[in-house]
Every structure is written in C-alpha cells, then in structure tokens.
C-alpha cells in the first residue's frame, strides 16, 4: 500500500507520461478512429441531457411541447426565462443557491480541517484507544448515509435543532472517508523525524500540526475537500428530512419543489428548466476544472481497499 502511495506521489502529472500508456507502440490509424469513435458516441450519451436542458431553457412553454426537443424553437426566450428564475418569489432561487454554497463551503472547509487533525493525530501519535477510534470510523465509512438521517432527525428534533441551518450543517462537518484518507496520507508522507526535529526546536504540538502537518498533507486535503463539497451539494435525503422552511432549502430541494408543481402549473416548466440550467453550469465548470485534482487521492483510497 505504502509503496503504491509513494509511486502516486512521485509522479506529479501522470497523464503526460507517454510510457505509462500500455501501447508505447505506434498508433494505427484504423484503431485510433475506431476507439475515438466509440468514445465520441459515449460522450454524446453523457451530454444529451445537458444539451437538452440548454435548448429547453431557451423555449417558451408552448414551444417546449410544440417543437422538436433537440433543436431551438420559434422563440428565443432564454433571457426571459432566466430572469423569471432569478426574480420569482423575491429571488428565492438565489437564496437556495446561497444556502447550498453555505452548506457545501462551510461544511467542506471545517470537515476537511477536522479530518486532517484527526487523521494526523492517529498517524503520528501512539495513544490508548487509537485502534478503537480507527475501527469505529472505518465502520462509519460503510454505514449508508440515509440510515442515519432518520434517527438524526429524531435526535435533532429533541434538541430543537431540526429545521435550522445547523441541522444540515452539523452532519456535514464529519467526513469518515476524509479521516480515513488523511490518516493513510499522513502515515505515508509526514516524516516522524521531521516532527521530532520540530519538537527539539521547541515548537508546540499544535503548532507542528498547523505549520508542518497541514502543509505536507495539502494534496490529500484538496481531495477530501472536493469529495465533501460534492457530497454536501448533492445531498437530498438529509435536508429533505430535516428542513420544512423553504428559506433554508438547498438548491436540490428548491428545484424539486418547482418541478413538483409543473403538472398543475405549466409555467413552472420554464422555471424548472431555467433553474436546472443555472445550477448545472457552475458545477459543470467546477467538475471540468477540478477533475485533475481528484486523481492522487482517489488512488490512495482505492489502493488501500
């Protein structure tokens, strides 16, 4: 395991190492066309729904049902639709979006910091209960998230926390998977002799973690942060169980609310398609830009299991 981690670490950008491809041999044009053709067809499958919503968001409700779904309609109502999305209900869409940013941003940051501190402590200190903690958290990785949501709601109801920002934020602060990853990473990368040297220089334990540990663990922390952000942003069951006040909704719950009104009020089709488009754009950009950062950490998680 450790060997695999260090291999992954040494190679900063494995994509551009040509020898890493199984070929290494000359490209045959026929094979290249065939393989690239297959990949292109699969790409169409992944892009069709996204393409459809771009087209649909530019249509009026009449055109949405009256014209070909894969091409633009007679009218071009994209900006009217988007304006409607942003202004409907005193800008409630913007509020939902901001809530999602708050849940995912704050949750992701704190969860990453706590996982880093915990993982570092388990990797770099010998203390009683260390193995028990690790075993417990490892079990937590395998517990289905939805299995804890219902009892958590009952618990938070009794504490008076249900239907508040805290009810979604507090569970988002914990990432067992991040803890697990940070421990492995700190084990492999934070050199014990370096920690000892810092101690001899008179640095306090917390200072060693904050200046030395966090800096060395940065690549793993980026992965944990991204995982946690996507996990919180995509979560639906937890906020659905916890929240009843629409002002606290994240974007997933808000759009679901609009979508469920389409069968009674057709104008909600325009709002839903426009809202979906607006919420997909930042995520799509983020995924494409951040896709490079996922690799290192994913390997380690995969190799360990």
């Amino acid at each position: 395991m450790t060997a695999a981690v260090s291999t992954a670490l040494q190679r900063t950008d494995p994509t551009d190492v040509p020898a890493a491809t199984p070929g290494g041999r000359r490209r045959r044009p026929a094979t290249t066309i065939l393989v690239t053709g297959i990949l292109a067809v699969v790409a169409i499958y992944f892009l069709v729904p996204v393409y459809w919503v771009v087209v649909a968001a530019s249509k009026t409700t009449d055109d949405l049902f009256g014209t070909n779904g894969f091409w633009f309609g007679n009218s071009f109502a994209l900006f009217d639709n988007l304006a409607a999305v942003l202004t409907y209900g005193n800008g409630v869409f913007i509020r939902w979006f901001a809530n999602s940013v708050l849940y995912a941003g704050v949750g992701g940051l704190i969860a990453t910091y706590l996982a880093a501190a915990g993982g570092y402590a388990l990797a770099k200190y010998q203390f009683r209960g260390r193995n028990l903690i690790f075993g417990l958290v490892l079990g937590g990785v395998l517990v289905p998230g939805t299995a804890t949501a219902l009892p958590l709601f009952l618990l938070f109801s009794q504490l008076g926390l249900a239907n508040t920002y805290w009810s979604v934020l507090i569970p988002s602060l914990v990432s067992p998977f991040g803890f697990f990853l940070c421990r492995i990473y700190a084990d492999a990368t934070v050199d014990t002799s370096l920690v000892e040297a810092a101690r001899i220089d008179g640095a306090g334990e917390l200072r060693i973690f904050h200046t030395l540990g966090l800096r060395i663990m940065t690549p793993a922390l980026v992965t944990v942060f991204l995982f946690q952000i996507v996990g919180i942003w995509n979560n639906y069951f937890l906020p659905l169980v916890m929240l009843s006040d629409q002002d606290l909704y994240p974007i997933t719950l808000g759009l679901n609310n609009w979508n469920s009104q389409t069968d009674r009020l057709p104008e909600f089709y325009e709002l839903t398609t426009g809202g979906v488009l607006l919420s997909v754009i930042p995520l799509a950009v983020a995924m494409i830009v951040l896709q490079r950062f996922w690799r290192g950490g994913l390997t380690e998680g995969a190799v360990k299991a």
Partner: protein
Amino acid sequence: MTAKKASTAVGRAPWILVGPFLLLFLLTFVLPIIVAIGQSFTTVTRAGLFGEQGVTTGFAWFENYRIALEDGNFVASIWRMLLFGVVQVPVMIVAATVLALLLESASARWPGFFRATYFLPYGIPGVIATILWSFLYVPGLSPIIDLTETLFGFTPDFLGAGTVLWSIANIVTWTYAGYNMLIIVAQLKAIPPEMYEAARVDGAGPWRTAWSIQLPLIRPALVLTTVFSIIGTLQLFAEPQLLMSVSPAIDSQYTPNLSAYTTAFAYNDYNVAAAQSVLIALVAFALSFLFLRLTNRSSR
C-alpha cells in the same frame, strides 16, 4: 521546558487534535445508530382513541422487525433492489472499466476531453439528474420518443411497470459511471511502465495486456467501486421519489429507503421505520461482506 512537561504535552496533543472530530462523529454517526436500534425495539402505545389519555412506551422485542418483514411491499422493495443491483452494478462497472481502458490506451485521441465529459454527471445532484432525465422520459415532452416514432414507428414507454426500474438504472449509471471510471483510471496510472515494457517484449498485444496485466492490477479499484455501488443501490431514494409524479408504476414503497421514509413521515410510525432502516443497513453490510469474501477467496 522540562522533560516531564513535554511528555504530558505529547500525551494530550492527540486528544486535542482528534477530539472535535470524534465528538461530532459520535453525535452524528454513533448516537443516531444507537437511537435507531433503540427505537426499533420500542413500542409506543397510545391510550384512548387519539392517544389523549397518555402515551406509554415499552420494550417490543422483535415486534417492529416482524411488522417490517411481514409487510410484503417492503420485502418486495428489497428484492427489487437486488434485481436492480444484479443488473445495474455489473453493467456500470464493466462500462467504467472499458471506458478507462480505452482512455488509457494509446489509441484514444483527446483523452482529457472525454474523461472530463464522462465525469461531469457526477457533479450533477441525483435530484437534478432525475429532473433532466424525466423530461426525456415523459411522452409529449421527450425528444427521444419523438425520434423513435419518426424513425422506427415505435413508441417506447420509459415509465411503465416493466421498464421504469431500468429507466432509473439508466439515471444511476449516467451519474456514477464516470466517477467509477476515474477511480479505475487513477489505478491504471499507478501501474509501473516497466510492466508494459515487459509485456511488449514478451509479444503481448493490447487485448492480452488488458486481460493479463491491467485487469488483475486494477482489481482493488474494481472491488472498491463495486462495494460502494452495492451500498448506493440499497440507498436509492431521490430517483424513484421524483419519478413517482410521472410514473404510476412507482408507489410509495418502491425502494426500501422510500418505504422507511413513508413509514416515518406518512404513517408517523418511527419505530417500524427505525427497524426498516436497521434492516437496510444490515442487508448493505451483509452484501458488501459477502462480496468481499467472494473476491478474497478467488484471489487466493
């Protein structure tokens, strides 16, 4: 600083570091699980017609589990998810593996673009993915149905009793295939170049290399993605819940999780819902464990 002081500082430090995480972990994972197990063994009896004469709670033994397991719809939903998993998980993992191998082969052009495209749906929440696909499933709105009608004179029914399960499988595959592919790609990149070198010297073609070198070496990634997919399958909730409004074939107990949600919030029976949640988690554990055992045995 004396030596004694320093050693107590070292003794205290790990607890200060791990403390906040541990506290929150106990609050949001361990405590809810204990609460759920406790609730699942509890019965609430309401005295009087509407419970106006007080509520008493008592130890119920396995009564709630009996009620959950005698509910034919709940048991059927577990079987439905097993059928779903037996088909969807292998299809998705095989697709992810083939895509990863093709992307990492020397024959692929623009691998970076394709990788980003396949991974993109992972960033789209299940709710939004389902809204997107439901528009492509609903007759009258779906351009796909229009297309097959004009081309083949055939009207597919994506939301019927026999097909809607596979329409959900399509949404799940669309969302997670690229993510699983990325995990496999990451492990493929960790294969040392010398291995390929040696295979080439021995005269192995691309098929042989994939079968004898790459597949055995990405085995841990395949096991990991399969276990996560099995756990994910049993948790299925958002997709069927949203499609319920457009497909009459989906009822409020279509998946185990939907069933537990309905029991808790529509029937207000938290105790039976807790028993159902525990059962779902147990089945997920058992299946993951079984799968890990099977893969361990065959590797020896």
